[in-house]
């Protein structure tokens, strides 16, 4: 047993994911929870649970002090940060080192290096890794920004030097818009990361986003586990991810080339544990280092499904000082996996968040279907946190079969009480562009602008839909609603069970 006890400094589906790994490794797990999360699934499933404060994350899940207190009182030997929250906060890693707790992630130094986009960029240029043309560091003011943007050539991307996840990011098409973009991005960056520093780089028009999963141990060995295609993004947030990338599948040498580059990136950062090197790929298949995520990714399941490697268990073993259990030669890729991020949001109303109580929850099952979720029927999705409530991932021998399986699984997935984006995925999957693997980061925006109600030629199916909605409406109607009709040509048993 690598550790006698592990504390998971997170919530939701990723906390559940880590608790499951601990359970399977026979390591007791400690959940932490804010006041609104007492009945969250991660609290139910963990061996221990420590309350760490009120609902706002900065008083609970983002409080290093409270997380460390919880680790101390529970006697945990290690902390798994999940993704989001404190996962890329070097202070937590440093505080763990001081408290003689194992941090299940890289060193604080690697995190600091990669946490600053400008420092990372400089280090990567030094290591001979291709980067997107851009400024050498944070831009000091409007004049410098104007100069750099002119040198690089419009369109440019203004980005927060700290942080990620699309926050503090603006595309600027022409000089006239630069000032406003700088102001907005700096204010967003300040709010999101406590640091308004910005830098500027060339904006690649509709590139692909392809990333490489790496694993390094504390003995200097680094391997890669191949790529993930994450080009389908909305508001710079990934929504569908897959492995292999259709582009890489068509050009197999890219996996080796990008993989070796990613390993070089990790080595240059003295990196250990699991990490992801993100690249942008242009239309000529040239790839550029974008950033390194120094943590487990949301989309790690697609790599697990295709390689058979359990990334969370590897993370835990690495943090305990064990050498990598696999060599690069032993990694092999079988079949294709696709993941959808299921959000509590309303696809029919601007994707507005949809917190609230889940009334019923039917999850897909059967061959090749994996669901990672923190949701259960009767649980109230809180207002305070990220709307990601589940991830649906499928595996099949080929990409077309994986798409068919995902469609099938989406058809079986049904959540009531809150709104979710499940219907949104279905409509993406059927598009010819998606099926042909012609993906880029502009895909979703183009798709949304094109989207119109597809006429459907099955009047009987429409009739079934109308009938079900009518029966539901009648059932839901208060007691003073219409009485059931006296006669009916429907079979009586069905009717009576519906209208009672």
């Amino acid at each position, binding site marked *: 047993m690598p550790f006698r006890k592990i504390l998971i400094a997170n919530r939701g589906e990723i906390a559940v994911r880590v608790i499951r790994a601990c359970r399977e490794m026979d390591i007791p797990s400690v959940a932490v929870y804010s006041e609104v999360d007492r009945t969250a699934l991660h609290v139910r499933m963990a061996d221990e649970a420590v309350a760490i404060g009120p609902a706002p994350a900065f008083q609970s899940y983002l409080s290093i002090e409270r997380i460390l207190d919880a680790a101390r009182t529970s006697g945990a030997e290690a902390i798994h940060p999940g993704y989001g929250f404190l996962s890329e906060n070097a202070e937590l890693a440093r505080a763990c080192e001081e408290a003689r707790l194992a941090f299940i992630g890289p060193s604080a130094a690697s995190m600091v290096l990669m946490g600053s986009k400008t420092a990372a960029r400089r280090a990567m240029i030094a290591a001979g890794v291709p980067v997107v043309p851009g400024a050498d560091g944070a831009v000091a003011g409007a004049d410098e920004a104007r100069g750099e943007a002119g040198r690089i050539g419009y369109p440019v991307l203004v980005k927060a030097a700290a942080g990620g996840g699309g926050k503090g990011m603006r595309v600027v098409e022409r000089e006239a818009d630069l000032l406003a973009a700088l102001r907005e991005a700096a204010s967003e960056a300040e709010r999101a990361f406590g640091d308004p520093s910005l830098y500027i780089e060339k904006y690649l028009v509709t590139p692909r986003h392809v990333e490489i999963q790496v694993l390094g141990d504390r003995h200097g060995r680094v391997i890669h586990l191949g790529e993930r295609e994450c080009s389908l993004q909305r508001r710079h947030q990934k929504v569908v991810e897959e492995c292999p990338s259709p582009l890489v599948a068509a050009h197999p040498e890219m996996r080796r080339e990008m993989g070796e580059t990613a390993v070089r990136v990790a080595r240059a950062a003295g990196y250990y544990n699991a990490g992801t090197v993100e690249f942008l790929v242009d239309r000529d298949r040239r790839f550029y280092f974008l950033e390194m995520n120094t943590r487990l990714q949301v989309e790690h399941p697609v790599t697990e499904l295709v390689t058979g490697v359990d990334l969370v268990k590897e993370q835990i073993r690495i943090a305990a000082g064990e050498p990598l259990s696999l060599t690069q030669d032993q990694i092999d890729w079988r079949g294709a996996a696709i993941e959808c991020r299921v959000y509590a949001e309303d696809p029919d109303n601007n994707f*507005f968040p949809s917190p609230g109580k889940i*009334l019923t929850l039917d999850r897909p099952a059967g061959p090749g279907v994996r669901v990672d979720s923190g949701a259960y029927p009767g649980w109230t999705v809180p207002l305070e*946190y990220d709307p990601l409530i589940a991830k649906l991932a499928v595996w099949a021998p080929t990409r077309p079969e994986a798409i068919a399986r995902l469609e099938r699984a989406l058809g079986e997935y049904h959540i009531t009480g809150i709104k979710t984006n499940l219907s949104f995925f279905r409509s993406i999957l059927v598009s010819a562009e998606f099926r042909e693997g012609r993906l880029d980061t502009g895909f979703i925006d183009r798709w949304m602008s094109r989207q119109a109600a597809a006429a459907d030629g099955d009047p009987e199916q429409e009739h079934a839909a109308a*009938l079900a909605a009518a029966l539901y409406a009648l059932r839901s109607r208060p007691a003073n609603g219409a009485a059931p009709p006296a006669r009916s040509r429907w079979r009586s048993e069905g009717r009576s069970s*519906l209208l009672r």
Partner: protein
Amino acid sequence: MKLEIVIDGRPRTLDLDEATPADAREVEPGVYSILIGERSYEVKIEPGEDCYYAAVNGRRYAVQVRDPRRLARARGALQAAGRQKVASPMPGKVVRVLVAEGAEVSAGQGLVVIEAMKMQNEIRSPKAGRVVALRVSEGAAVTGGETLAEVE
């Protein structure tokens, strides 16, 4: 019983008594197994703001259901809508108010930004007009359905 329904924007009358013989069962809450002849449809209902979404075989229909008695009331409500309330679609916190009371706005113009679930969500004007009332200020907590502003 006859119901007036609107399915994906197309009005229809659904006569429950004269309808194609169908065997409909609610097998789970909001889930209907419907056999029409030998065709089997599993329809999953999600209630929306002003309609029901009926998902079947990956196709999603927006269905509004009215019976004659209710229809009259519903029409009345629609006619009164010269002055239109803008409600918050979810609970959250007002992080920015983008217009002042009395301002002229165009359809789709942002009125208020609500933060919920770590997302900033811009609530827009449903029509062109004038903001006749502004009910919230920055920093306020709002509940789902709470009126934020009125546009006339």
